[in-house]
């Protein structure tokens, strides 16, 4: 049963884009599908094809309005590595359905972009959570955010600069070791896109 088209909402904040997609109840679950195309412009091809590991993190939240804490959160982390020998995009996807990672390979950029931008069949929350309230769905896409792994690797680097971030070497720098210990995660990744749906409810007229 299709609940509501997530139609563009005008008048949102400057850095918040309208979230386009569908919500439906399927087997008692609230399932969503989005088009996150604006977060993956064509010029992102160069970055994702640079032969380095790139990470795309998608946070989907379901929150009642007006602005309360999210009632449900869905997180999907996608690692993209362009294999310069095979000339393919190797993708590892982790989400609640694939906690240990699901491996995919894309031969073409267009296919990869479609995979990243067109999110389908996300299990957001149990449908019973909706009740009579009004809700809003937000999606936040971060490209190469500061992950815990990155933080750990950077700590290794500054604790033992001579070892070049290789794990296991004893630190030869007291200042570096202390700086490593005190290193905290400040700002998130530079490339962040936020999308938000218009408010909807299970009994609302927009529900189909």
């Amino acid at each position: 049963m299709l609940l509501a088209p997530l139609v563009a909402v005008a008048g949102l904040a400057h850095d918040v884009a309208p979230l386009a997609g569908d919500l439906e109840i399927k087997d008692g679950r609230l399932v969503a599908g989005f088009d996150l195309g604006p977060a993956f412009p064509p010029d992102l091809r160069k970055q994702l094809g640079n032969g380095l590991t790139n990470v795309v993190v998608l946070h989907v939240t379901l929150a009642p309005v007006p602005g309360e804490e999210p009632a449900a959160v869905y997180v999907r982390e996608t690692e993209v590595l362009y294999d310069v020998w095979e000339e393919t995009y190797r993708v590892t996807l982790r989400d609640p359905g694939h906690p240990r990672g699901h491996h995919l390979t894309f031969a073409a950029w267009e296919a990869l972009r479609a995979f990243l931008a067109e999110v389908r069949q996300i299990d957001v929350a149990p449908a019973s959570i909706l009740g009579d309230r009004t809700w809003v769905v937000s999606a936040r896409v971060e490209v190469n955010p500061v992950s815990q792994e990155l933080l750990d690797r950077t700590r290794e680097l500054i604790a033992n600069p001579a070892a070049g971030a290789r794990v296991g070497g004893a630190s030869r720098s007291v200042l570096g070791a202390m700086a490593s210990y005190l290193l905290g995660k400040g700002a998130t990744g530079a490339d962040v896109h936020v999308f938000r749906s218009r408010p909807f409810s299970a009994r609302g007229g927009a529900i189909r």
Partner: protein
Amino acid sequence: MSARRHLPSRFELKIALALVLAAVLPLLAALWLASRLAEENLAVGLNPRVIERLEATPGLFRDLFQARKQLYAEQARIIARGLPADPQAAARHLEGAIRRTPRLRRVAWLAADGTPLAEAEATEPNPEGEWRAAPARVSLSGGEVLECTFAIEARFFAELDEVRELAETYQGASALRADIQRSYVRAFAVILVAFALLAAAAGTWLARRTTRRVSDLIAAVRELARGNLGIQVDPGAATDEVAGLARAFNAMVREVRESRDRIVYLEKISGWQDVARRLAHEIKNPLTPIQLAFQQLEARWRTEPQGSPEFGRLLSEASQIVKEEIGTLQRLVEDFSGFARLPEVRAEETDLGAFVEDFLATTPQLAESADIRLTRAAGDCPVALDRTLMRRVLANLVENAAQATRPGKAAVHLGVARSAGRALLTVADEGPGIPPELRGRIFDPYFTTRSEGTGLGLAIVKKIVLQHGGEIEVGERPGGGALFAIAMPLAGASGARR
């Protein structure tokens, strides 16, 4: 000292505050420098151009791999163009291709169904070490395929992995650049604060050793102001100004105490002299009439002898007793009078050792009752003294020493030396000594341990010594016996007190 306090004084707090300020101000400057240093080092270590080049390195490998693939495809096409139709000849052709074509490890001519029609494989190890297979296929007519397997150096992939890991690390570090700078500044701050705290603690500890001694001095001065002349402060083993101040304070308090004791003693002696004068007067006045009355009584008895012989004998015995007692009372009166009329000191400068030698030479009768030995230390002991009064002092002390060892002949040790800026005269005997509990009273007038003594001798000695600005103490001679020590100011240091 008992006045030690547990709470820090204002002085200590000020010193501690000064130390903290002295530690904090350079710390702030060092933190600013650390921030700049971290920023500049990060600008060098995380140079955007270097990181860009690192990020571009996998692209270089991609270009390398593509070039190799094109090369291998071209070489495969060359082999395919010369491939004979006869399988045996084709096999020789392929073997020749293996030998001629660099990095070609295997080549196979496959029929449309995949059946090998001819094939060849390199038997020699790859001259470039470990390798990975790079296939190159050429489609032939009739669905046949020439399948070549080339070698590509495995080290390329290892290097690619390493450079990717490095590039990702530096890329991440670059993203965290501001956080890294902050963490370095924080680490610097933590280390500097730790050092500053250590320095402040050490400085406070050192300062407190001084300020505490100053506080002790202040407390001691307050105690002195309350009249406690027994107060002393511990100067410790230090040789600094505070220790010097403590020693000077102790010396000052000691001098004040001695002066006070001297004044108190002289006042006390003066009172006793007054009593002695009155006693002497009161005793002396009736003695003469008593003596005259008895003389008249005896004279009458002699001129009128008709009386009872028994009465005459009784009168004679009574007369003898009265004369003896009157003689005793007269000696007592003389002692009292002598004590009451002690003359003022008329000091003249002389050497103490020479004076003692002169005293011994001019008082030969002392040698009859005592074996007197004089020990003079090297050097002069110029003092200002009244020779008559000091002779009385010496005579009294030597006589006391001689009496202490009677009935045997006494051994008396006299000593003259300089000590602590004063002239020291000691008189010691080898008798039983003076019990410690009596030493505090031995200079009091009328205190004596002898039945025939008046208790005035040592009181007179002490008064004369005090009038000379000196001190006298009694103690124990090493080896047994009493020891009297007289300390007098050296001439020129301070004048005799009159």
